[in-house]
């Protein structure tokens, strides 16, 4: 009985409503934070940070965004890439138009811009549901991608339409632009992601979160007990897009440094959706696990043959990688349709009963 709550009495509702009511969870969380803020920057190679950890964090943020919408509010969206693009281009325009603006402010403002765009594309959700809505949100995806590709103002009229993160510093460190070290970019990303993840957790536990879930689980009943679908759905779209927008801004500024609209293509939307589903719909933790899975597994698979000393032609290796990735998705979906986060929860339940099976 390693993982049990017995003996941990809550004497008031405030304690009961803490984010991590269990002592074990609090410890795990503390350890994770120490690892994230201290161990990783001290030990990770540049490749690790640049190719694995930073994208993981950024995608986790986007996945949280989509999870708020799809997992909590039940509105599946395939426009994530588009909303990320809004954030990215907004951040680029803000940063280049107001060179002295603090980058954190730039990121947040670009999230706000994305939120407004999200609300606009969320309006059809009041009438359209399920897969119809999912496909309809592709309109946002394609339209936004087209817009940023077409309207030269968004990329300051440079001939190829690529935006490049200008160098900016904070606390005396370069945090974006080519001269920013991977560690600096990692830290700034981490701070943004951790804070926003916490905010997301709070939102989902409050009445906004409950109204989203109510709409998700049974929209008619929700309306009848007094939840306004308009408010719930549009706020979900707005906040979700805010997260995606910030993720898009980070995508350019702390990860790739330079992108064209193709970087926010529909594949990104799908990727984020995979993360949410594989990780677990309606779980913030799941967003992290899913993002880790989807960003890390292909990289592991790419590097595995070499690691084990096989020398495969790269095309064959890629094909295998794609196949194995597909199989893994199916495998995990079958093992636990509710996502890896649920697997973790079941593991906890088992630990609680341990050594008894039931």
């Amino acid at each position, binding site marked *: 009985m390693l993982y049990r709550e017995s003996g941990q009495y809550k004497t008031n509702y405030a304690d009961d409503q803490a984010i991590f009511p269990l002592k074990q969870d609090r410890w795990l969380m503390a350890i994770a934070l120490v690892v994230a803020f201290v161990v990783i920057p001290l030990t990770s190679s540049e490749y690790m940070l640049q190719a694995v950890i930073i994208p993981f964090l950024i995608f986790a943020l986007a996945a949280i965004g989509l999870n708020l919408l799809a997992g909590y509010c039940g509105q599946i969206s395939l426009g994530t890439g588009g909303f990320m693009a809004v954030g990215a281009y907004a951040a680029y325009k803000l940063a280049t138009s107001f060179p002295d603006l603090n980058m954190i402010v730039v990121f947040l403002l670009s999230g706000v811009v994305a939120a407004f765009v999200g609300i606009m594309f969320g309006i059809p959700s009041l009438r359209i549901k399920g897969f119809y809505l999912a496909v309809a949100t592709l309109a946002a995806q394609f339209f936004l991608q087209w817009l940023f590709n077409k309207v030269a103002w968004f990329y300051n009229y440079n001939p190829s339409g690529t935006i490049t993160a200008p160098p900016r510093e904070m606390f005396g460190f370069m945090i974006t632009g080519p001269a920013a070290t991977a560690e600096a970019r990692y830290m700034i990303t981490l701070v943004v992601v951790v804070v926003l993840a916490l905010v997301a957790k709070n939102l989902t536990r409050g009445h906004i979160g409950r109204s989203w879930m109510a709409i998700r689980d049974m929209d008619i009943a929700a309306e009848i007990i007094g939840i306004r679908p308009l408010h719930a759905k549009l706020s979900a779209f707005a906040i979700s897009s805010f997260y995606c927008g910030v993720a898009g801004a980070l995508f350019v500024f702390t990860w790739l440094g330079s992108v064209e609209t193709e970087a926010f293509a529909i594949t990104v939307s799908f990727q984020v959706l995979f993360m949410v589903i594989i990780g677990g719909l309606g779980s913030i933790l799941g967003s992290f696990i899913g993002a880790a899975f989807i960003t890390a597994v292909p990289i592991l698979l790419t590097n595995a043959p070499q690691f084990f000393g096989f020398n495969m032609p790269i095309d064959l290796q890629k094909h295998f990688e794609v196949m194995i990735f597909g199989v893994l998705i199916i495998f995990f979906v079958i093992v636990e349709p509710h996502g890896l986060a649920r697997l973790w929860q*079941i593991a906890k*339940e*088992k630990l609680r*009963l341990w050594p008894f099976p*039931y």
Partner: protein
Amino acid sequence: MSEDGNMLLSVKNIEVVYNHVILVLKGVSLEVPEGGIVALLGANGAGKSTTLKSISNLLRAERGDVTKGTIEYMGEQVDSLTPNALVSKGVIQVMEGRHCFEHLTVEENLLTGSYTRKDGRAAVQRDLDMVYSYFPRLVDRQTSLAGYVSGGEQQMVAIGRALMAKPKLILLDEPSMGLAPQLVEEIFEIVHRLNKDEGVSFLLAEQNTSVALRYASYGYILENGRIVMDGDADKLASNEDVKEFYLGMAAGERKSFRDVKHYRRRKRWLA
């Protein structure tokens, strides 16, 4: 019941686990004789539906597993058959909560019940007419989408649909739920008739104990995943505890629901 030969269905000591962690049935055994009507009684969450689903093999679709025990139908072990093989063999379940095909019309719903039948259109048509004669209300609703008909009408559709399979054994899960009183009687009359005229056997999970015991020949009482009592229907009906907890009678008289506020004896099975 005793171990005599003509048992249609015998469930032996099954244990069911959901999601690999939630243990719901803790060794349930029961038998349905050829041509019998057996009632399975018990409170909410006792595991009645689970028992029925493990018989019809619909458990797997809910991530449940029979981890122990065996289920025999006509002397043959059927634990590993697919639900449709069971239907072909004559075992069909009417699921709790209706489960109509919302986007099919009422008539189409009924016809899906005949999917496994091989005896030709005429026979199916005959049974369809029979179902309509049992449930005249459905005639008006023939072409409505099942998703739009009222709760009670859906219940009729679900039962009618099962009848269309011409089964030998029907597992009825809460047939009376949501039905108007006179219809409850009618449904049980139908059960009775099918049982007498066509020799169909029934295993019914039912909350409406008084009616169930009136029509059943034998009954089991399930609490918390265990059978706590069984016996002939009339014996059960005259048991004091059963009377109090399942029939709502105190000292031989029906008590008013208004009085429950003031005194309540809690059920305890100290078996």
